[in-house]
């Protein structure tokens, strides 16, 4: 067991965890932040994407002990009270999700993109998002949703 101290969605968290705890399990089972979904479990599908110090990672292949001292942002950290983040609003308005399982990962990946590059081209969006799989194959709408935010079409 080890004690880790980190920021999760802006809040300080101190927890004792087993050495082999995965970040996705730490978030879902230790912190009850079940918005983050586990898909492939091997770092390929993007469903479990969270931000680690602002950068996107697959939380299913990250050990929780190595995020000690870091800042983790999950889908639960985006809305301000009952006001959605522009990306969440855009995914609703532009049909960016169907079954919804991949959506938290899609939105977190898109947030990392727009935080570093607020006005990406369509090609930059496609390149960045290509590792986030959608088994409903709703890719066009996901790209449109992100473009809508980049073009300021969604009220913040």
């Amino acid at each position, binding site marked *: 067991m080890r004690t880790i101290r980190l920021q999760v969605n802006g809040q300080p968290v101190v927890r004792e965890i087993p*050495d*082999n705890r995965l970040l996705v399990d730490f978030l879902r089972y230790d912190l009850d932040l079940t918005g983050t979904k586990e898909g492939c479990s091997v770092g390929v599908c993007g469903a479990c994407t969270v931000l680690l110090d602002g950068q996107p990672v*697959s939380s299913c*292949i*990250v*050990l929780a002990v190595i995020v000690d001292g870091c800042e983790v942002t999950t889908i639960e950290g985006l809305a301000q009270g009952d006001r959605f983040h522009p990306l969440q609003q855009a995914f609703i308005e532009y049909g960016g999700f169907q079954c919804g399982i991949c959506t938290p990962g899609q939105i977190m990946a898109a947030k990392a993109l727009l935080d570093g590059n607020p006005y990406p081209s369509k090609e930059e969006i496609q390149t960045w998002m*290509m*590792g986030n799989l959608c088994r409903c194959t709703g890719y066009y709408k996901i790209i449109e949703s992100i473009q809508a935010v980049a073009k300021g079409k969604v009220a913040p």
Partner: protein
Amino acid sequence: MISFTYLEPVDIDEALATLARYGDEAKVIAGGTGLVNLMKQRLVQPTYLIGLRRLAGLSGMHYDGTLQIGALCTHRMIETSMLVRNHVPLLAETFRQVASVRIRTMATIGGALAHADPNQDPPPAFMVLDARVRLRSQQRTREVAIGEFFTGYYETVVAPNELITEVVIPSPLADSGATFVKFLPQTHDDYATVAVAAQVTLDGDRIAEARVALGAAAATPLRATAVEDALRGQVPTPTVLREAAVLVADAVDPTSDFRGSAPYKRDMAVVFVRRALAQAAVRARAGRGTA
């Protein structure tokens, strides 16, 4: 997930002492993108896991005629570094093609080398750049040429008490051009069906030296020396490049898998060596390294 005891040395001396004590029963972890998957599948079951994240001295890059990249630099750092782009643009071009941004954020260059999956992208680029890998143990520091670093499928020369500390890359020669091309018939973030790095150095109209290396083509990344020898002193016309590229078919030893059958990969190695050489020659003529 298997059980293990996680150890976190605070500096390199403690890390080397920990490795000296537990090396045989331990695995070193940086980003974990390779190792965690191997542990999940129980292919690797270390008693101790030695985390390197506190070793701040291994996460820098500097340039003093050669580019030195600390083992803890992530793929994303190398992809986006201006130092890399200015001095060894082939590396920026190669690293931005690795997997997805989520992997590049976590995966370190030291971890990738130690992982030694023959399908990885950086090793062929390191091979045409004549990179060296610096290793440290409590007893000594040594440098190993990248061509001698990989000894087999997921195997390297790194001893259980050694740590990869830096990758050292000489500046590409003037009048040279290089490229890295990756054949991806399935998805953009997949490992390649075949990957080729090529560097062509011109002396006037003729090739003074060509270097060609491949990933995903055998149990280890490999240099295609027969192709290189055939090109020396030649004018890089399409015919010359095509005839030289054919020679790679005897150098590769691919395995059949869901990325293609062995004969198909062999054919594609020829095609992509030719394309890489053509691109590198264009860049050498334009005198601009990589684009």
